């Protein structure tokens, strides 16, 4: 049979039962081995012949990669194989943690659909690296880092900058991400997420933002990040800096939006023009920041 997505290219499937075993396999096979997590992205890329692999290494059999833990003052630790639905369930059972990580919760409940979220993972969503992913925006405003382990050592890698393109990251082929930490948000912060999707479930502009002490310039913190609009997840650091100025919040929002629209290199594709994306970034960012500042989000 030869329907276009019917078949997958040939590969050997391996499912290590421990981290040591997995690292051994990756070390031995290098670029020829590809990690599979929830597999939604990996299976899709294989079907489209956008990815090749001699070995598909399923990491779902490694027990310590499944976890969710909130440590006050440090942050929210999410295991690499923890699914998006598992995170949503955890946050719904812990309202205080959910309020701290509102933008992550809102992005998760809008990520793909309720059925795919039983397989899709937060870590996989970030590492897949397509422009419209929902998990990277919240990861950027919560200064998330991934714990990467290989046979030769371990390191914490900031999510900002980790993705270089579709299925391309700064990680080495022999490294496995074991978990991601979403750092403790600043005291008094509120956060939120807006996904603007037109025809499909893929957002054409997604905004994640965090605001603390909007009317107290000395303590004010604002963080803004986008996906969907740009080829890679984009943290609007220059705009964030403006909020250190001792001026009214509303006026700074206006300035910030202008800085973002002037500096950002936006995508242009069949779903939306570059102009429309910039327009949406302006409107959605303004609404989100103002509502967060007023406590209405």
């Amino acid at each position, binding site marked *: 049979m030869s*329907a*276009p*997505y*019917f*078949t*997958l*290219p*040939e*590969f*050997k*499937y391996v*499912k290590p039962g421990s981290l040591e075993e997995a690292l051994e396999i990756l070390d031995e096979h290098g670029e020829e081995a590809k990690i599979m997590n929830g*597999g*939604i992205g990996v*299976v*899709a890329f*294989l*079907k489209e012949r956008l990815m090749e692999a001699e070995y*598909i290494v*399923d990491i*779902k059999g490694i027990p310590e990669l499944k976890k969710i833990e909130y440590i006050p003052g440090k942050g929210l630790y999410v295991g690499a194989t923890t699914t998006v*639905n598992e995170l949503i369930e955890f946050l719904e059972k812990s309202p205080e943690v959910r309020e701290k990580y509102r933008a992550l919760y809102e992005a998760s409940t809008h990520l*793909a*659909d*309720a*059925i*795919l979220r*039983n*397989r899709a993972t937060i870590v996989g969503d970030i590492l897949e690296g397509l422009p419209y992913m929902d998990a990277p925006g919240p990861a950027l405003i919560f200064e998330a880092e991934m714990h990467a382990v290989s046979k030769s050592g371990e390191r914490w890698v900031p999510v900002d900058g980790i993705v270089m393109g579709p299925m391309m990251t700064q990680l080495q082929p022999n490294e496995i991400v074991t978990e991601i930490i979403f750092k403790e948000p600043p005291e008094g912060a509120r956060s939120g997420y807006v996904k603007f999707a037109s025809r499909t*479930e893929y957002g054409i502009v997604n905004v994640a933002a965090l605001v603390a002490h909007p009317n107290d310039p000395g303590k004010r913190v604002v963080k803004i990040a986008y996906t969907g609009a740009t080829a890679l997840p984009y943290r609007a650091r220059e705009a964030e800096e403006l909020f250190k100025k001792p001026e009214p919040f509303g006026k700074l929002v206006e300035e910030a939006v202008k800085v973002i629209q002037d500096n950002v290199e936006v995508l242009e594709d069949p779903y939306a023009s570059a102009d429309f994306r910039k327009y949406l970034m302006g409107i959605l960012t303004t609404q989100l920041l103002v509502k967060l500042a007023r406590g209405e989000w």
Partner: protein
Amino acid sequence: MAGRMITLRLNGQERRVEVEDNETLLYVLRYKLKEMSVKSACWKGECGLCTVLMDGKPVKSCMVLAVEADGSDIVTATGLVKDGELSPIQKAFVEHGALQCGFCTPAFVVAAHHFLQKNPNPTREQVKEFLSGLICRCTGYAQIIDAIMDAAKYYRGEQKASP
């Protein structure tokens, strides 16, 4: 490429089947195990019509490798029928005319069954949000949502399944 044997429980029955590493669960369920209630349509995780319960949770079987299902418990719409009698969610679909061509129905009932078990008191909004990964091109969804809202009473235990 050498195949390998996997074992899974399909609707309560243990089944052994030889699969290739690069075959999807959808392919194996439908074309090797002849479980025809699992529909094959988009193959890209979009339409959701190949949805089955895997270890109790709905998954789109075109996005799962068959080897991943080794040792797992799979339930399809066929498995909801007990002793030749439709389950409450299936009856509700019939009563509400929640189908026209019927192609998407097995996926909707099996997914709705899971949803109502977890959430027997849903709002229409929650049902809609849950259904966003399943595509029906005939009904416009209104009757499907009616059927699920109505069937919820069985999951709350307010009404017995058989009259």
